[in-house]
């Protein structure tokens, strides 16, 4: 009885910081935003309850076009992140020697150390009209005029991919690490081609890692502001920019709050659909 009581006190002491964190940084601001997203200024300058902010969103094509584009591109970047990083994760866990793997892992982590802003500027230096790549291509004589790469969807996707890749590699690696190599050998022994081994054995085995990586990447990308803004330029039409504009350019916080909630609903429902389609459970993916 005494022990149990003591345990309870410790338990509450440990949970308090988490609760404070959750309540002050997540519950209260979101509640506040949720309420203000339903408030509209009437003719007398008073705040009244209304669905006006949401109606505003649906009545302007530019808003929901941006919304749809953001969703499609975020899904696209997530898929790309998987395609680009899966071979890397496979190589690091199954092919490379232990010593090489830890060195290569370090290289993968480097972009994370310098921060997103610096890597984004790095890409600007590389991709600009007078950037390194164009300079090189003109220098070797492949092209005469610089290729317009910066401030396009292409450069935006590159930037988003680069900053989110690592979050796909790590969960996939940890899923692959627990896979016994003899599964691959057994499939090979039973006559499976490399393609079949990858699609029927390796990828299904790594599925919980892939899905959890995909959720993180998707969330990071859909909520990212820097890469779309700096690399995508004026035409990037990323939904976070619309939210930013409502808050800081037009000072319509209520509209901004509504946009914020729409983004939350969008990302949550896409993840829900993705979980259903891949047959994974959130609890399993999270562990």
């Amino acid at each position, binding site marked *: 009885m005494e022990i149990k009581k003591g345990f309870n006190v410790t338990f509450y002491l440990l949970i308090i910081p988490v609760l404070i964190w959750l309540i002050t940084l997540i519950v209260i601001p979101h509640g506040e935003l949720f309420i203000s997203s339903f408030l509209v200024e009437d003719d007398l300058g008073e705040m009244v309850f209304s669905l006006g902010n949401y109606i505003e969103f649906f009545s302007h094509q530019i808003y929901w076009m941006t919304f749809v584009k953001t969703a499609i591109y975020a899904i696209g970047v997530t898929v790309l992140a998987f395609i680009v990083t899966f071979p890397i994760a496979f190589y690091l866990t199954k092919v490379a020697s232990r010593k090489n793997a830890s060195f290569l892992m370090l290289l993968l982590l480097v972009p994370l150390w310098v921060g997103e802003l610096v890597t984004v500027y790095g890409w600007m230096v590389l991709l600009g009209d007078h950037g390194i790549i164009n300079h090189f291509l003109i220098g070797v004589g492949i092209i005469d005029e610089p290729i317009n790469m910066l401030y396009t969807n292409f450069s935006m996707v590159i930037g988003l991919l680069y900053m989110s890749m690592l979050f796909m590699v790590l969960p996939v690696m940890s899923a692959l690490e627990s896979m*016994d190599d*003899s*599964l691959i*050998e*057994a*499939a*090979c*022994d*039973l*006559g*499976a*081609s490399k393609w*079949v081994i990858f699609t*029927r*054995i390796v990828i*299904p*085995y790594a*599925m919980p890692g892939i899905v959890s990586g995909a959720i993180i990447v998707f969330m990071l990308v859909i909520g990212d502001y820097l890469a779309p803004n700096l690399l995508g330029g004026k035409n990037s039409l990323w939904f976070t920019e619309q939210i930013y504009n409502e808050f800081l350019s037009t000072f319509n916080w209520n509209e901004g709050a509504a946009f914020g909630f729409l983004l939350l609903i969008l990302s949550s429902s896409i993840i829900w659909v993705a979980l259903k389609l891949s047959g994974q459970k959130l609890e399993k993916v999270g562990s």
Partner: protein
Amino acid sequence: MNNILAIKNLSKHFDDFTAVKNVDFAVEEGGFFSILGSSGSGKTTLLRIIAGFQQESAGDVLIRGQSMKGIPPEKRPVNIVFQNLALFPMMNVRENVSFGLKRQKLNNADIKSKVNEMLERVGLNGFDNKKVTDLSGGQRQRVAIARSLVMNPSILLLDEPLGALDRKLREHMKVELKLLQKEIGTTFVYITHDQSEALVMSDKVAVMHEGEFEQIDTPHNLYKNPQTAFVAGFVGDTNRFQLQSKEGGVIMTKGGWKLSSCNLDITPEALFIRPEALIINPAANVAGIDQFEVTIKTILFDGSNTKLSTLVHGSREELLISLPQNAQFEGIVEGNTLNVGVHRDDVKCF
């Protein structure tokens, strides 16, 4: 008899050591061939070379007389049951067993009937839709064997497949595997470190030690007539004595035990006597029997495997003697002095 598998002077070198040294053997069609060795003896490397997962450094593997040089694992007429079974966890029993057949592009009806037949054979009908992770150890075992056998391989390679099972189940699976092999007639090449598995199941056993085959023989001969000191010491329980000298027909162990019987003319280094070869209270004047007295130090009771730990009179040598659990020896207690005999042929010297 046809040799389905022939290994010709096979060697495998890694950077700094040789895993398989000049191994040469043949396996008869329909046989149950075991390779028995402790861990690190090179037996798994040998099996992986036969399966094609590793390349031989020298020598050749012939299956039905055809060289396997340069033929990848998926093209070889062999299938392997892995040590940890390597069942595909994301698939159910039926999907696991039909995986290989689907790769052969057979039509669905054929696959279905083959898989049904195989599941029936290994006693898993009705388990089709079970996840392999929900099966017991023995059932998983059967799925792994069914998955390989359904491919109808010329040779089935088994890499210590019973290693992960508990003792009771292992004893059971031993018998089951042997019966299954007899019934379907596929050639089995079985790797194990457990001599009881090798002796019970096999037609022929090869004892492997430090990359070399010490002896290839029937289980009976391996036990009764070991050809090298390693085999004598490795297969079955035995008493081992270092020898000091040999004068005339009398040999003396390091511990000062004199025996007149030894089956070799050469000057041996070590002497082996199996615990069950020792006869308690032998009849007097039987030809070819050495008699001596021992004192019982402890009785190591283990049911039918009970042994006496004894001290040989006039020496410092300890001797393990099997004690049959029958009424004849009921009265034996610690401290007793026993008269013990051993037949000349049962004393093995190397």
